[in-house]
């Protein structure tokens, strides 16, 4: 994570600068009055976009940013975090999929798609970490796999259409 840089602006207040990973830079100027200015500059662009917020507006915005109002479900965040950190992906087995009822061993998923199944999350809330090869796949299972993007695409096709 890039550091937030703090700069003193005598007579005005302080500035906090956050470089954005996808490019550009976000800066928050905190005035002595408590008012805040938000600056955003796109990479390569000349003049930044700036918004002035009163103290209370800034606080409400901060609450939104920290997830105080609404936050996506934990499982979605877990997936997003997994995908980013370890190359872990999840594939959901819909009901009526041709793979339902068959064993992992029989499906030969590793050879066909390049995906390794490291866990299965069942509909009833139970989870099977490191499932044995003879574990059957059930409807609405969430398969947690280690794979690259190509492998995941193959697995999704396979699970949905049995290709």
């Amino acid at each position, binding site marked *: 994570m890039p550091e937030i840089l703090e700069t003193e602006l005598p*007579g005005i207040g302080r500035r906090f600068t956050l470089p954005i990973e996808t490019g550009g830079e976000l800066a928050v100027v905190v005035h002595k009055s408590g008012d805040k200015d938000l600056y955003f500059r796109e990479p390569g662009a000349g003049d930044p976009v700036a918004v002035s917020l009163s103290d209370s507006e800034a606080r409400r915005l901060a609450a939104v940013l920290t997830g105080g109002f609404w936050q996506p479900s934990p499982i979605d965040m877990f997936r997003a975090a997994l995908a980013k950190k370890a190359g872990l992906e999840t594939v959901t087995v819909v009901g009526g999929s041709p793979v339902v009822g068959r064993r992992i061993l029989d499906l030969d998923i590793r050879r066909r798609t390049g995906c390794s199944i490291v866990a299965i999350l069942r509909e009833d809330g139970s989870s099977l970490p490191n499932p044995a090869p003879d574990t059957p796949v059930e409807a609405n299972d969430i398969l947690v796999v280690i794979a690259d993007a190509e492998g995941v695409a193959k697995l999704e096709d396979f699970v949905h259409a049995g290709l």
Partner: protein
Amino acid sequence: MAFDFFSLAVVTLAAFLGAVVASKLGQSVILGYLVVGIALGEANWRFFMPQAGVDLVGSPTVKALADLGIAFLLFFVGLEFSVRKLKNAGKPSTILAFVDYGVLLFSGFLVGAAFGWGPVESLFLGGILAMSSLGIAAKSLIELKRLDSAHPETEVLLGSMVVENFLSMILLTISVGWVAGRGTTLAVLQSVQGAAVIYGSFLALAVFGMPKLARLIERIKNEEVFILLALTLVFASAGLAVLFGTPFILGTFFIGMAFAETRLTERLQLKLSTFRDAFVAVFFVYFGMNIAVDLIPGVAPLLAAAVVAVLIDEVLILSAFAVLLGFGRRAATAIGTAACGRSEDAIIYSSLGSNLTRPEGGVQVPALAHARELFPLAGGLALITSALTPLLMRHSEGIALGLARFTPRALRFGGRVVGAIFSESIGPRARSHPVAHGDPVLLALVGAYLALLLPLAFSIGPGHTVLAPFVVLLSLLIWREVRIDVEDAVPKVDFARLRFLVHDVAGIARYTAFVVLVLLLFVDFVAIEFSASWHLTAVAGLVTVAALWLASIRMMSAITRPPARMLASDLLSRAELERRRRTRHRRDPRSFAPKNL
């Protein structure tokens, strides 16, 4: 003396009205106070005095509370100001602050001389002109949205105003001492001595005593006890300063500075800000009341000259120095235009100057010959520059383009070469990859030079004769040191950014050091002639510098050539030049290949 509640009520009512109107119009309240003050002063002569027999301007109560206002104001300036901030100001800010302050002080002197003012009066005029207003600059920067890191000059110019604040305190001490002794070396020395005691004791308090004292005071839970202690600190420091023959605001400024960045800062601000707001309003209205309307036509030419001097010094000279330090022309003019504002500092300065008295035939008379004229001058300056500065700042880019068009090419080139070198050693690019680290010898020399400069300027007689050669010798030593340092730095500087070939590395070092030497000698010259017959010599000095500049331009053209002339002399095709510019990698054996940073 009975407390004059009636006058005070009129003044606070006027301040209230002024503040309401000013905030409705989106102007700073200070301007509102000034304007109602002027109106009230006029009303005083026309109505209150003849009709009601009340003298608002002469009321000791109003005057006392106005003084209290400046005492609190400077205490708060001190609270916002710490040794750490001064240290963090960085080299570009510090250099720009010294240049800005010095140039304006000198201009104030020239303007004063042109209008036949004596040296002491001119010095106060210089003090009024010198201090850029942090408030005006900050307000406009916020409105123009120039606070992000895409505008690195913003930090630099705000930092330089912090340094200027400190310089103005020092100058105030000296000028008050000078007035007290009418220019005798002994009186100046006594005042310097007094100031040294004040500065020293407050610094010692800030560094050694403060943590312990702050912890003790922090334990006070009772708010009444706390307020009484805080007030005692403010008043005692002011009294102490007066005891040592220095202005009282010096004491409150330094006690504020001692408490800056302790855990008490916020509590002090919270508890005392009501006092400040109330009495500062009284002070500004009182100041406005002292602006005699009938004096305004007489002061107008001087005021116009002062405004022109400020604009030339800030927009042209300060911007030019910013270019020499390596700022691009946009950033440089942004610095210059932001420094145009004059406000509370100019007002405080003129108020203190015109309040100085000396005994004459048993009564106290104003010590300055033009004491009454300082009021309309500072007030007018504040009103005009407050209106002009935001305008200039908004159009700083256009001004930059215009200036670039009118600057001779050789000068522009020289500026860019010097800027490229200083940019990477002390300027804006130094923070990421400094090509030269701080040279202790150079720092010591510059420190000694600056320390001797003011005594030289203000002393007369044998002391002056002894100091002068010393200062010139120091400038020569600085020149030698800069030349050595620049010779080390030049090979590491990436001149490719400038888009022209550099033929002569040693020449660049010579040139850069020469520019520094010219500037130093000019400063020496002014300092030496300052207290002597400086009318004519000042003009002679300017001519000398202009001549030296021309000489340096010749030198410049020998080092590098602008692309158009290079085409003819080096027989490079335009396409070849373009290719070189694009690749930014020179293999020409004669040209200078930058080492990779």
